[in-house]
């Protein structure tokens, strides 16, 4: 996985609450057996007409947000289905960080497996950042993972909380499976103990 360091990018607003993973990537695109290539279908039903033409009003179709790398979103972003196709589509489009007041649990975890940093901030902070996105491509927002801060184009700084292990893995671009396999002994002794205690499993 690619390391996440400091991100300086255009931020796009998506203030709608409860943006679900069916919106992020509709089910017809789940019939792939690959992880790549889903960016073109990100937010497909919101982004395109049925004939495939772009809806000009959709935020990521507007010239000032086409290169966005950060989304500032409404509450409970990523609710619904567990489909990892949602972060795959986001990352393939070029989104590297999503900021909201809260995220759905499975989506939140899925982001970290794909080099995306989901940031939880209080409503007042998200309101300021949402306002800052209005500047579109004339401005850059800064996400600093090491310092755990988001900085607006005006220099206002917001600190965010993050699990230390998740931060470490994202900073170093670590492969979870490799890390766990290094603890193979612990898994084996657990299995031996469990086989004694709960042999029916």
């Amino acid at each position, binding site marked *: 996985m690619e390391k996440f360091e400091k991100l300086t990018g255009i931020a796009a607003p998506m203030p709608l609450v409860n943006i679900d993973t*069916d919106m992020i990537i509709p089910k017809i695109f789940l019939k792939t057996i690959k992880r790549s290539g889903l960016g073109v279908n990100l937010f497909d039903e919101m982004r395109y007409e049925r004939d495939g033409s772009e809806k000009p009003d959709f935020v990521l179709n507007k010239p000032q947000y086409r290169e966005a790398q950060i989304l500032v979103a409404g509450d409970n972003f990523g609710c619904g289905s*567990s*489909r990892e196709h949602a972060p795959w589509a986001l990352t393939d489009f070029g989104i590297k960080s999503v900021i909201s007041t809260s995220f759905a649990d499975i989506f939140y975890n899925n982001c970290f497996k794909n080099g995306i940093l989901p940031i939880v901030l209080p409503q007042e902070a998200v309101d300021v950042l949402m306002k800052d996105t209005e500047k579109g491509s004339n401005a850059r927002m800064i996400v600093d993972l090491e310092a755990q801060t988001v900085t607006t184009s005006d220099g206002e700084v917001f600190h965010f909380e993050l699990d230390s292990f998740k931060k470490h893995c994202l900073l170093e671009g670590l492969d979870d499976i490799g890390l766990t396999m290094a*603890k193979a002994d612990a898994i084996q002794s657990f299995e031996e103990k469990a086989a004694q205690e709960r042999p029916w499993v």
Partner: protein
Amino acid sequence: MSPKTLYDKIWDAHVAHESEDGTCLLYIDRHLVHEVTSPQAFEGLRMAGRDVHAPDKTIAVPDHNVPTTPGRENPDQMTEDSRIQVAALDKNAKDFGIHYYPVTDVRQGIVHIVGPEQGWTLPGMTVVCGDSHTATHGAFGALAHGIGTSEVEHVLATQTLIQKKSKNMKVEITGKLRPGVTAKDITLAVIGETGTGGGTGYVIEYCGEAIRNLSMEGRMTVCNMAIEGGARAGLIAPDETTFEYVKGRPHAPKGAQWEAALNWWKTLYTDEGAHFDKVVTLKGEEIEPVVTWGTSPEDVLPISATVPAPESFKGGKVDAAKRAIEYMGLTPGQKLTDIQIDTVFIGSCTNGRIEDLRAAADIVKGKKIKEGMRAMVVPGSGLVRAQAEEEGLADIFKDAGFEWRLAGCSMCLAMNPDQLSEGERCASTSNRNFEGRQGYKGRTHLVSPAMAAAAALTGHLTDVRELMTENA
């Protein structure tokens, strides 16, 4: 020892390793796999030269893509991409030696119905699947939740998950349910109360008299939608109802092992005085049959209510409600019972079990669906289908004008050919009313099986209790 919740007990029994910062390796007892969220995980194993760590604890079944019409063994019934996905699961199951129920097997069905039915799901287990509705298995007092594909690969390779413990939440439903009110109404009413983010960061334990009185089928319906309330998992402590359901299932323990298991299962309850971080209480007798009016499962109202005005909400929900009402083609103030229905879907991992079909058949018996109505029943598994045929339910549905389908996820998420067309309005026993969920621009109202059956007869959203009075 300090008192523990049910969640604490199951969690503690499965920690294989704990780091200083509290990050744990949680051991997984059962890993369920379906065709949509697994191909990339198996590909990942192959590329890294890794094997499946515990193939005997891994169970696969195709359900999302499969057609539900006769003759579906013929691959031509599927689109090219669906065919490739199902074929990939066939091959992965064979190559890695995991348990598998192909589409030709009578035991095939929705993964969350097959697991309990075959006795793979047992109390006190940890169960995961690359599917958010894995929460269903919590009905057995098993810690069960959905995971992403990277985590599917992680479990395949190591039989563990990297986890931090969630907080404890108690949802108590006191008293008795009134006639016509079902497990589906309970679970929707809870989400209406807490919102879709109300459970975020928590594992919910459902308890109280109304929960205790539910069958295993009803309990699965309640836990199934824990995820719609944002919770990582939903749990119900196992009891005699649970043990009776499990006993004799193909993969349930037998003989001395059954006795040993039972001894442990009987310790799986929340201790007196254990701490919950959040508590929600609803009175069972106050719950009415409910429907959803919008595009989020939290948009729940009693059937006797009217479509709300967006201005009655607060914050970001005002715009979301405006958008939902426009998408759904409704008018604020409109009576919910005046909403005309084009299609009725009875099925899914929420409501595709035998008890659900019985409840719907009770309403439908001897009657015909409204002229022009499209109505289908999609049993949750081949075995549910066979049992319903044996009990005469299939004939009741067919005589009334319902289509009687083969098992699968079907129109719950419309990945197979069962889809709504633009503007088509459906009373559905499934779990999500998101925009486009059942088909592009399709409109979904979530209801119980009895309420879905009532709508099929009258052609509009209907208070099922009125039809029950008629029957009595």
